[in-house]
């Protein structure tokens, strides 16, 4: 009788090992697929953010070098529609959102012909702040130390 019991136990052990192996393989493959999907989604998200930061900084540079009020008005519409009112810049980018908001106010002053008496160059300074904030985020996404970002 004991011999039969031992043989039965061995058989059960073999069955468990045979059935557990495919499960383990499936779990490993599943985890790998999830990791790959997650990585690809993160990469897409980073690409979208990089494109938004590049778009914003080049638009602000265009605004800063706008030759006349008409082109300033046209570019400010794009700025308001695409970036200020849009969702391209995520809420966690508070530095960019803050400088962007300040830039919007100074842009409005520039368009309506108001000069800041004590800081006539503030519009340009805040514009450069937006560009710099974008460059910092781009560097962060590309794993470049922020010390290497030019002011």
């Amino acid at each position, binding site marked *: 009788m004991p011999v039969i019991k031992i043989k039965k136990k061995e058989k059960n052990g073999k069955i468990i090992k045979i059935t557990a192996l495919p499960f383990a393989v499936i779990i490993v493959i599943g985890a790998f697929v999830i990791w790959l999907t997650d990585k690809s989604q993160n990469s897409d998200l980073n690409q979208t953010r990089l494109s938004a930061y590049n778009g914003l900084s080049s638009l602000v540079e265009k605004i800063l070098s706008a030759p006349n009020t008409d082109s300033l008005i046209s570019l400010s519409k794009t700025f308001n529609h695409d970036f200020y009112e849009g969702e391209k810049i995520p809420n966690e980018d508070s*530095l960019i959102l803050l400088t962007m*908001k*300040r830039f919007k*106010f100074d842009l409005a002053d520039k368009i309506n012909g*108001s000069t800041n*008496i*004590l800081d006539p160059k*503030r519009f340009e300074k805040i514009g450069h*702040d937006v560009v710099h904030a974008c460059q910092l985020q781009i560097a962060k996404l590309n794993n470049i130390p922020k010390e290497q970002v030019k002011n």
Partner: protein
Amino acid sequence: MKIKLCFLLIFFTVTARSQTVKDYVILLTADLRQSWKLDSITFNSNYSDFKKETVFLFKLDNQVILSNSHLQKKDTLTWFLEKKERYTLISLGTIGRYEIDFLQKNDKKYMRLRNEVTAQKNMGITEYFFTKSNL
């Protein structure tokens, strides 16, 4: 020598900073007292801290007297300026803190106070435009 240079640098930095605040004080008080009348309000939010045509008499001793001809009422508050890197804040007693700017358009000078700009997307900002008054 290096320590002396450091002290000189700190001195000039502090002097330059205080001169900037001083520029605001000169325009705000005309170096003694200056009245500013609330001429217009741009509502980008649903509230206003002040009524139109309220006159603010800013005095060099950091006192500001608010008067409104309709209400026959005067309030005295203290004002205080604080320079930030890109803007300057003015505190008006317990009412609040506002960003202050002196602007010029078509040879007309005016003062603007507005709620401090924050990163919050949906937060409305009310702007108050003042012109010099002789009251």
